[in-house]
């Protein structure tokens, strides 16, 4: 059965781990969960394809795991907190996985993060819904402006300095 279209499928570069993917990806995620035990990590590393048979993955899911195609794993129901355990089994840091998923290198990715991360501008929608959400564009309610403006200003300048 084809996946039911959801409003969040419009977000680019994003595979939302929803109830349907949770059902579909049960095997992938439980496989990853098993890697929390050292003996399982060793068994997996010794014969990956054989080890995976225990988890009843689809051929597509098996291929994605064997090829370490992290985006495909997410698309087929894997969840990042689970697939990260596979990354850890391979000795990779989380940032390394993020770089792989974004088609970048770890130094470039780390550099992007240091410069403030990936901008939301141009990254909101596949279908052109690029206007900011009402909550952001609408600004903040200005209630009781006299209450404690000093505290706020101080807090802001302080965090600004730290950046």
């Amino acid at each position, binding site marked *: 059965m084809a996946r039911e279209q959801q409003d969040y499928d419009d977000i680019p570069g994003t595979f939302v781990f929803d109830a349907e993917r949770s059902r579909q990806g049960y095997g992938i995620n*439980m496989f990853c969960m098993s890697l929390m035990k050292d003996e399982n990590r060793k068994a997996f590393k010794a014969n990956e394809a054989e080890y995976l048979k225990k988890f009843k993955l689809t051929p597509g899911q098996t291929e994605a795991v064997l090829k370490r195609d992290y985006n495909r794993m997410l698309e087929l129901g894997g969840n990042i907190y689970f697939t990260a355990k596979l990354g850890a089994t391979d000795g990779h840091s989380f940032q390394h996985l993020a770089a792989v*998923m974004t088609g970048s290198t770890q130094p470039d990715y780390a550099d992007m993060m240091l410069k403030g991360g990936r901008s939301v501008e141009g990254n909101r929608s596949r279908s052109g819904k690029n206007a900011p959400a009402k909550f952001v564009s609408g600004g903040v309610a200005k209630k009781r402006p006299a209450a404690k403006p000093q505290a706020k200003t101080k807090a802001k300048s302080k965090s600004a300095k730290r950046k």
Partner: protein
Amino acid sequence: MARIIAGVGSSHVPAIGAALDNGKTEEPYWKRVFSGFVKSQEWMRETKPDVAIIVYNDHASAFSVDLIPTFALGCAAEFPPADEGWGPRPVPVVKGNPALASHIAQSVILDEFDLTICNKMEVDHGMTVPMNLLFGKVDKNGHWPCPVIPLAVNVVMYPPPTGHRCYMLGRAIKKAVESYPDDLRVVIFGTGGLSHQISGPRAGLINSKWDKNFLDNLSKDPQKLVKIPHIDYMREAGAEGIEMVMWLIMRGALDDKVDEVYRFYTVPASNTAVGHIILENRARGGKAAGKRKPAAGKLKRAAASAKVHRVRSR
């Protein structure tokens, strides 16, 4: 009667825990992050809560995909740190407060929040990293300064509870705490966030404008936040930024009007925008109201800013 005296919001980035556990806190990258919590630790030492309720999420540690409870309250006497694949974090076992926890469970379930009760649960970085940020580093063989009641929220599988539902659960927790006979001073934590996406080709997304608006409204106009639909969190603040709904449980458990006594924001810690806020309930008449004397109008506000000054200047 017990009373919630303050709320704390804090990110829970696992790399912060790793930096702490591996002695990297003095490296410039991490010093920038930890420096934002020095005053908070002073505030916490001064506030000395009797109990902390910590709203957090599990990351495939205590809960796999076998069981996915939306709200799970820890009623156990203790919660060991989970082995997240690299051995448990070297932090002490977290002691609970089963009497208050079961009181809360009973009260909020009758208020129509169908909690899952956990009488056995391990806790991961989602809880212990904010504890370190606020309580400081505690040796594995030492003791956390107060008992903790963990409240695990599903924000891993979509859909998490709505912001409104979270806020209303906070309200119910406040009512539950205030109907507990012992004079306990309780601090509630909302953790996770702020903007971040760690999965898929859009990983690395940060939206500081969103985060700032979120923090501003958290203090002043939380009703605005409870209306935000999930799609907006995910689109604007990243797929994993949806964790921010957990902060609304904390906010719901506070009074309508609060004093923001501290805020910190920095980008990045690993893949995430780190946000932190401390909100205090204003003093009420009566013994359990805390150290501040009851004050009205301008006096109360003056007391609040004096407090702000005190926290910042030391």
